[in-house]
């Protein structure tokens, strides 16, 4: 068992606590991930698709208007919203599908919250001709009906999960149940930096392209590192990708922004959920608490194990923003910069509006725009009318 090697642990967090059958599947996955992650041919193929299919690298855009309006630190936007399929999710999905191909998978399954990961998964499955099933909470299919249609258009089967709250957590449950039943030919393409080892390490590996690029780009523009990197956090895939290259740069502040309606990191405590140890938003009896974020992608009572560790070790900062602040961030970025961010990313924008004025004009910060807001326009329209 690999856990004894402490691979897949971040301090006390991470690991793999799953039924024995599932552990066998994870062992095989782990073996393949470590076999291919630094393989030259694998990375050549991945980079080819990053450039030719996704349109990487994504710009690090100096938001001059927003900077002027806020006063204070220069605000740079890492434009993951410009990726094919409209979010950072495609980075990880491409990496994992190339792994799935090498493992001979006939079928891919995935969970999705806002639908971004589902769309990204359906997209690469269409391109590689692999059968695809997406699990999505029933409540989320209503909030993001356009993304459901998008996935179906791409040839995926979308299963609306009615159990529980009908949200991301419930979709994860169903996807794992499917994997345990069908692991012989099925690859679970997990989209967030959560779940049992090796998923968090794998998702981080493929998402770290974000900070690999942004670090070079920022150095080229400013000749130094940023004062802070901001990202929204639900499970934490865009945040861990945006942070990865800065974790050892102790002068760079890492700031995770979460909804005050799903304040896992700010109010949770260590626990075990979905097969790994992390900070869990839970009651006294160890039952995960319901979450009510306006952003489906952040509606999760757990968080990636490395984020849990970055919090308890004090390396990263965790802040919450209110729905009103998020809507303000959403509208401000749209009006001032002509960029409509995803509601998830608008959390990071919202905190930037507070942080930038508090910093010196000599400083600069990077805000990770993890996705574009087209999917949310209808929901925001309804919220603003109220």
């Amino acid at each position, binding site marked *: *068992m690999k*856990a*004894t090697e402490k691979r897949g642990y971040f301090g006390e967090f991470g*690991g*793999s*606590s*799953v*039924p*024995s*059958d*599932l*552990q*066998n599947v994870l062992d095989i996955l782990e073996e393949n991930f470590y076999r291919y992650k630094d393989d030259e041919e694998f990375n050549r193929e991945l980079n080819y698709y990053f450039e030719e299919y996704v349109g990487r690298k994504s710009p690090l855009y100096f938001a001059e208007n927003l900077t002027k309006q806020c006063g204070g630190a220069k605000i740079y936007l890492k434009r993951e919203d410009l990726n094919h399929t409209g979010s950072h999710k495609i980075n990880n999905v491409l990496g994992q599908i190339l792994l799935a191909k090498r493992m001979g998978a006939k079928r891919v399954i995935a969970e999705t919250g806002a639908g971004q990961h589902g769309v990204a998964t359906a997209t690469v499955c269409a391109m590689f001709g692999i059968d695809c099933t997406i699990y999505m909470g029933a409540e989320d299919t209503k909030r993001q009906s356009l993304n459901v249609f998008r996935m179906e258009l791409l040839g995926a089967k979308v299963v609306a999960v009615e*159990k*529980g709250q009908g949200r991301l*957590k419930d979709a994860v*449950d169903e996807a*794992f*149940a499917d994997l*345990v*039943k069908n*692991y*012989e030919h099925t690859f679970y393409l997990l989209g967030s930096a959560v779940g049992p080892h090796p998923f968090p390490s794998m998702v981080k590996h493929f998402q770290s392209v974000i900070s690999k690029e942004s670090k070079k780009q920022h150095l080229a523009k400013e000749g130094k590192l940023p004062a802070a990197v901001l990202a929204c956090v639900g499970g934490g895939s865009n945040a861990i990708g945006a942070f990865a290259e800065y974790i050892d740069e102790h002068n760079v502040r890492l700031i995770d922004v979460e909804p005050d309606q799903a304040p896992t990191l700010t109010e949770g405590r*260590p*626990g*075990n*959920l*979905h*097969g790994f140890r992390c900070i*869990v938003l*839970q009651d*006294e*009896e*160890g*039952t*995960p608490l319901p979450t009510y974020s306006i952003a489906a992608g952040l509606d999760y009572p757990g968080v990636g194990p490395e984020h849990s560790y970055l919090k308890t070790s004090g390396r990263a900062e965790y802040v919450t923003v209110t729905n009103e602040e998020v809507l303000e961030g959403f509208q401000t970025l749209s009006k001032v910069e002509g960029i409509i961010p995803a509601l998830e990313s608008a959390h990071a924008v919202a905190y930037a509006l507070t942080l930038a004025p508090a910093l010196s004009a000599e400083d600069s910060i990077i805000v990770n725009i993890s996705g574009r807001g087209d999917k949310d326009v209808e929901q925001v329209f309804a919220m603003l009318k109220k």
Partner: protein
Amino acid sequence: MTLQTAMESAIKSGEKAFVPYIMAGDGGLSILRETILRLQHLGVTAIEVGIPFTDPVADGPTIEKAGERALANGVNLRNVLAALKEFAHEVKIPLVAMTYLNPILAYGAAAFAQDAYEAGIRGLIVPDMPLEESSIIHTELSEKEISLIQLVSLTSPTERIAKLAAASEGFIYAVTVNGITGARSVFSNDLAPHFANLKSYSALPVLAGFGISTPEQVEAFGSFSDGVIVGSKIVDALAHNDWETIESLVKASKHAEVN
């Protein structure tokens, strides 16, 4: 009586062990006593008591639904143990709790072991706690003579099967079909050698679980295992107050062929 002793005495008497699974709190905690005492009266060897949890990654649809009904009744680990404790003096057979890791962590290992013991719990199954992590609770359980039962998947690599079988306490819970719990109609034909293989790693009784739903299957499994655990079918029968089905399953274990 420890779990292992109970299993062994059932087997020595020429029968096969029969362990029904029930979801505590399905139908309300008020019926828990009656359900357990009635099963005891039917002559079951032990009872596996499932604790409802919001994210039951190892449960099939029938048990998951029962769990949701129980959760809707406000049932949790703490109030199940409290309910069991009230009639523990009437229960002569060992109870085996099945719960996920997080509620135990929230409870605290020592407090859990103490309350579980007082509730008549003699065995524990934690499907999402790997063997390598069992030190979180193992000492506390041992002090109360509560057996930590390992699930052994027959599809695991040999090395892992050997390790789990050797570490299990009370009995070995052999998972007979891939994956999660639920009633199945088809079984692999080549199970018998797997059970023989398990026996070579441990002197403990080996019980077959996951997917047994008919008296015929109970008998068939009896020919190469020490008994069976029946989950989904029992949960379903209890939800419909169908004691006839339950009785026929228990009876089948009494005349299962002894090898």
